[in-house]
């Protein structure tokens, strides 16, 4: 077969439901034999955070950010009907009932399918996130690396 097609997704949102959509499309595209890249920037970086507390020296503002942002995909909130944390509980129950795959599982599956997960280093600095806090086996890059994947891409989404 000819050269592989490419899907590139920018995940800007830190909402559970939006990240789920991004990762479902990414996994689907990988099953379509596309080369897939998800570029995580701003709040989307939280999807890549490890869920454990990692001791790192940080300044005051960075510490505040770290506390206020969800630590890992499972702790992310919903874009609609969040209801102070009750919404995600409800949706996770419904997902179980319908056998839908959870966001942490979708991320794991994406890694198994060789989806390239990229963290934007500029916004990592802004939010005070460090490599030790993010998942293993991901890449670190900026806009140029993203564009080089996207410019000959076939599907390109901003979520």
């Amino acid at each position: 077969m000819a050269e592989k097609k490419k899907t590139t997704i920018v995940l800007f949102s830190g909402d559970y439901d939006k990240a789920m959509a991004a990762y479902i499309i990414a996994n689907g595209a990988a099953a379509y034999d596309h080369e897939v890249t998800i570029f995580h920037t701003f709040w989307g970086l939280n999807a890549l955070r490890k869920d454990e507390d990692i001791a790192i020296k940080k300044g005051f503002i960075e510490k505040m950010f770290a506390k206020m942002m969800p630590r890992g995909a499972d702790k992310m909130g919903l874009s609609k009907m969040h209801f102070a944390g009750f919404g995600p509980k409800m949706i996770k129950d419904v997902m179980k009932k319908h056998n839908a795959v959870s966001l942490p599982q979708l991320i794991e599956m994406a890694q198994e399918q060789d989806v390239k997960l990229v963290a934007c280093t500029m916004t990592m600095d802004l939010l005070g996130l460090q490599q030790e806090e993010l998942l293993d086996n991901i890449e670190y890059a900026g806009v140029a690396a993203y564009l080089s994947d996207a410019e000959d891409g076939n599907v390109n989404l901003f979520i």
Partner: protein
Amino acid sequence: MEANKVLDAKGLACPMPIIKTKKAMAELESGQVLEIHATDKGAKNDLAAWAKSGGHELAKHEEESDVLKFWIKKG
């Protein structure tokens, strides 16, 4: 239709049927047939599109009570 391999994707939600199909298909040789059982209502359009894009042939599909069955011949 004679299948070389059967994939049970019943009860699985999107995107699992397509991911499992891809994995199962990778283990087959060209010309061999994969039989897939699914209950996701989107599976029909999904598998048809996936097969077409990958150069495979959706040789046959049928519906038995609530189970959708597909036979895809590897291209």
